[in-house]
């Protein structure tokens, strides 16, 4: 469902050009759980931002279900981000003045869910990731890191995306909580046949995924 061909990304900085990605090629099937590992600065986040249409490649192509992301208009990109992609970030990135429930409702709004059904749908999603009735009313600052990441996952899956992109989703959590979050993602990929691409430093986690790519200086060095 995902095919990356000759993908290159160069950043122009005042100190000269930075080649974050060099001639990347890989493919992922529907429902696969893929992990990306690599040293800091190897280009993992840059690759995810290309896949999530947050940024455009310098050259090469990215095809998701046969659609070339580089050829989308900005309106189509927005719609792609809202409906086809779900993002999970290392820093959770929840909107601080909205409750857990409202954060999930926000994603539903962007995805085009009717106003009347947003609240029930968001409640269902939050219960699914393991938050109770009282916790879903709280603002992010009044939730633990693990709980916040659960809210972020509920937000990511709100519009039943085909692809979930997670940038070090367990990076800020202790290993036990990180394991639970990973299991949650895993379960989702199985139950809904959602493709997941997760960047991780945790080799234990990487070992349990269907595929692992290793990035080094913007190049894929190992595929397994």
């Amino acid at each position, binding site marked *: 469902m995902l095919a990356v061909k000759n993908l290159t990304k160069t950043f122009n900085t005042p100190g000269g050009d930075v080649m974050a990605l060099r001639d990347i090629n890989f493919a992922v099937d529907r429902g696969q759980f893929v992990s990306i590992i690599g040293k800091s600065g190897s280009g993992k*986040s840059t690759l*995810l*931002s290309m896949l*999530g249409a*947050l*940024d455009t490649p310098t050259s090469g192509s990215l095809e998701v279900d046969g659609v070339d992301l580089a050829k989308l208009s*900005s*309106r189509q990109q*927005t*719609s792609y*981000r*809202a*409906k086809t*992609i779900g*993002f999970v*970030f*290392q*820093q959770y*990135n929840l*909107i*601080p*003045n*909205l409750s857990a429930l*409202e954060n999930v*409702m*926000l*994603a539903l*709004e*962007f*995805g085009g869910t009717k*106003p009347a059904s*947003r609240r029930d749908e968001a409640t269902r999603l939050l219960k699914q990731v393991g938050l109770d009735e009282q916790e879903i009313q709280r603002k992010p600052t009044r939730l633990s890191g693990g709980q916040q990441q659960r809210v972020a996952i509920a*937000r990511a899956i709100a*519009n039943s995306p085909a692809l979930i992109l997670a*940038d070090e989703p367990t990076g800020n959590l202790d290993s036990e909580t990180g394991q639970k979050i990973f299991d949650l993602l895993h379960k989702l990929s199985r139950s809904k046949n959602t493709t997941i691409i997760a960047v991780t430093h945790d080799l234990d986690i990487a070992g349990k995924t269907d595929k692992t790519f290793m990035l080094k200086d913007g190049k894929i060095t190992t595929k397994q």
Partner: protein
Amino acid sequence: MNVVSRGIKNATRSPLRGGAIVLMLAISIGLVLSMMVARSSVQTKINDVLASAGTKVTINAAGINGFAGGGNPLTADNVTTIKNTAHVASISSTLTDQLGSTDTNLQSSLELGSFGERQNRFSDGSVPTPPADSTSNGSSTTTDRQTMRSRINVTGTTNPNVASVNGGTLVIGSGKTIDGNSSDLVALIGQNLATKNNLSAGSTFTAYGKTITVNGIYSTDNSFTDNGIIMPLATVQNLTGQPGAVTSVVATIDSSENVDSTVSALKSKLGSSVDVTSEAAQAENSVSALKGIASLSLAGVIGAAIAATAIILLAMILIVRERRREIGVLKAIGGSNFKVIGQFVVESLTITIIGAVVGLALGVLVSGPMTTALASSSSNSSTVIISNGSGSTATVARPAGDFGGFGRGLNQLRTNITNVTASLTPQIFLSAMGITLAVAIIGSLLPAWLIARIRPAEVLRTE
């Protein structure tokens, strides 16, 4: 939750900072409104003064100013000439005289004081006696044997209202007014003079050897004027033995466009023995201070509007910078530029509207006092003559404050200028709202542009 409710909610996100921004905005917007009120009130007053002064032309006998000076009064022929000049709609004529203690049983209500004594140092012992020829033969007009008392002003006029200091109707405190066109032995007595001599409506007094009946008591806010007697013009002409003579004529011109041409026509017809002056030119001078205030308040309106725009702009730039990451998140999870910008525009509008409501309320409250303060400071700095209110030093040679001449015009202007009333019209209020709206729009445009430029990939950057 939608774009609008999120925007409103965000406006109250940090109450302390939001409150400070709202307060600063409110002060600027309040200033915009009150400056607009001040400007329009002053402008209205300028127009009023110019319009009311605009059609009056004063014709004085050359050398005579009020009760002082020398020269010959205008003749009946002169008055007829004036009356028959094109565009002269109506005239009121005045003959002034003064009573010394041998002319009347009345006592002046004005103490001589050091000013009066100085004016009387020329005394040669002669005194006008009825039927006096003193006012018509120059040098002896400023004399009085009774050097310890000032004299009493006598105004013979076809229109008693010319004595009103503010140019309106003469205020008659008790009794009734007189018919300026009669030749009866009746008089209006100034409040101070009446008190001094225990006169009331119906009393009589002696002057020029005749018994005169008091018809009414008038009062102005001018001590000099209130030490006077007003009688019909013909009565004074008869009593002083000057048939047909007048010292001053105020002609009302049919329209303000014709004032200049009529002034020239009168000058050429009457020659150098008369001074023809129009109040329009004088009024123009007198309102120059008000015009200064008007342009000052316009600058105030512009300045305050710019300040309000700067405040909302800075506040929004601050907010956008601070929520850079949040904006990136909104875009990354599928928020369109339209929705994200819309949310911030609503936030900026909410802050501006709250600021506007508070500010307009503030403006309504302060616009009155502010206009008054501005206008009264203008009357102090203007060239208008302000007389000593106690009147204790006022006497024969007082330069202004005569009946019917220029002094009246000046006094009228003085009263007008200090009487600027703040009026908050719906139009001003709407314009202030319009300015506020413009402020809100400008205050949203730059943040919108900044938001549009934030890359969603920003969220993946670790801080």
